[in-house]
């Protein structure tokens, strides 16, 4: 791997990362109680903004017209991982301040896999539309697919991908879904990277 390639692998601040950090910080400050006699319930909105933000980022990146290049896909996944890591202290601060009946480890860990899973689903949708020469349908298909996935998740019962419920409680079903949803895109990205090098 050349020096330029190694340098490209290092995380960089992009608009999405700054936006996610900013939104999480704003949620933290707004939800933090101004008076000491008011109960601190900041964690829930902060977790939803962070986890939901990463999921939205992943989906938008996956359905973006520029997501075709393998290098772009690799960078996007890396940026999401960095963003999940960088926003973790903000969520941890909200958690420690509000002491909810939830698992901080689960909530912190679930954000990046959800983002990558959303990215993978969006990527699959975009690829299917491109393959069938229906890419022009993306502006309509994207929100419909999101609504369909969320509706299906609501119907199934235990939350698997719902960003406003997922951080609340650890779930084996959600862990398995996210592990699978993360493994497939990561495997594809790595395979593409190997092909590129070859």
């Amino acid at each position, binding site marked *: 791997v050349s020096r330029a390639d190694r*340098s490209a692998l*290092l*995380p*960089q*601040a992009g608009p999405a*990362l*700054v936006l996610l*950090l*900013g939104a999480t*910080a704003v949620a*933290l*400050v707004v939800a*933090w*109680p*101004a008076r*000491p*006699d008011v*109960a*601190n*319930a900041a964690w829930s909105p902060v977790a939803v903004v962070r986890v939901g933000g990463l999921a939205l980022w992943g989906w938008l990146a996956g359905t973006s017209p520029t997501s075709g290049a393998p290098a772009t896909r690799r960078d996007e996944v890396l940026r999401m991982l*960095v963003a999940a*890591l*960088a926003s*973790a*202290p*903000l969520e*941890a*601060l909200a958690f*420690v*301040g*509000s*002491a*909810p*009946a939830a698992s901080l480890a689960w909530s912190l860990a679930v954000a990046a896999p959800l983002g990558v899973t959303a990215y993978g689903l969006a990527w699959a949708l975009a690829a299917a539309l491109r393959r069938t020469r229906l890419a022009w349908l993306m502006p309509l298909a994207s929100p419909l697919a999101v609504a369909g996935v969320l509706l299906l998740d609501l119907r199934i019962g235990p939350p698997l991908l719902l960003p406003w419920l997922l951080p609340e409680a650890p779930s084996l079903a959600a862990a398995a879904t996210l592990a699978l949803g993360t493994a497939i895109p990561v495997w594809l990205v790595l395979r593409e990277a190997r092909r590129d090098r070859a």
Partner: protein
Amino acid sequence: MNGSRTGVVAVRGDASRARRTRWVVALALWVGLAAAQPRAELTIGVAGEPVAGAWTPVRAVVRDAPGATLRLDLDAGGLERGEVLQGVRARVADAGGVQRLDLTLPLPAWRRLTWRVEQQDRVLASGGLGARARDGRPLALVLSSRPARWAPSFPSDARVVGAATSDLPVDAAGWHGVASLLVDGSTVAPEPRTVVTAAAAGVRVLLPAAGPAGYGPLAELLVDGPRRVGAGSLEPVPATPGLPLPDAPLADWPRGLRAGVVAAAAEALPAPTWRHLPKPWVLIGAVTYVLAVAALLHVGGAPGAASAALVVGAAALAVPFAAPPEPAPVERGAVVLAGAGLGMRVPLRAIARLPEGESELAGPYRPVEARPLRWEGGATVVPLPAGGRARLTGAPQLVAVPDDVRAVAAGEGDPLPETLRAALPSDTVGVLRGDTWWLLRRPPGPTAGLAEAPR
């Protein structure tokens, strides 16, 4: 010969059989009686008369059941509140023979009350009270060999109950549901300490001024005539049963006023606080963090990434210091309704919880507003949701009014909190000592020198 000998043997044989039969019958009777005797009994209320909404003596007597447990479950809800479950769990001493368990518990206005005494999985006794058995009227206790003849002396809506000396509560909290105690001198005399405790706890006590044998110490309490003691009064019992009782001496703290003042004092307690990290600090910290991470990543390359990682790591290490010092804060206080040298002290608690869970208070407490809780092992356990709050009042205790409080009360006193002042008569003086409000009234009238009596 043979015949007569055989006859003697037959008579002896009949006598022996009759003796055996008598023994068998006696043994069967003894076993039957022993089996018929209940293994456990429960008495709720003074003389077995529970008063809804009052601190109530509860006595469980268990025979030969070491480690038996009393479970009392009640629904304190209503049409608006729905079901509000409260419970009592108490364990009898782990010993054989007859064991007694005495509790004084705040009995709410119940919709359903059930109890059982159990030993492991075996139920020794059980029972219950329905909503129809609920009565919030305070008791008019009559300590007499013929209590019925005193019934016409009370108003028609009074809850007149004949009681024995052994039924009388010994602590101030046990008298909470009693309005008056009439002792006519025809039974065993109660202890003077018990009588003074009753009066100080707000009970109107009527005693024989010149009693029979054993009543001497009680009669001495009335040497100076009727008097106010603490929140209640002592006065002589009328000579003729059946005639309406004279008007009660003006009590410093009538029953209705006491309940309102205690509730107002509980409301006046400061709200418990969690002492969060101040919001401006959170704002400054969050903005600084976001700008630092974004700037360092913008620099790019290994130095930028490493510096950003350092900032993230440092922030993660600093996070635990932002935890509130006390996630389940408790504000403590007390109010004393004082009069004539004695006072009724009611502990007050305001609790809050940041995480969902159960807050435990040592001793029995009752919530100001009906809520689910349980009394377990001498403590009050209050389940609260995340960010939940509750205000509770403890069992009344009898205290003597210190001289320095009386001295301050003779002047202007200390400024009262608005919530408390609104519930008090205008002639009330408040003195704050530590976390306790001493409330005294200034009506003219004789004062009792009985502060030493209940000690």
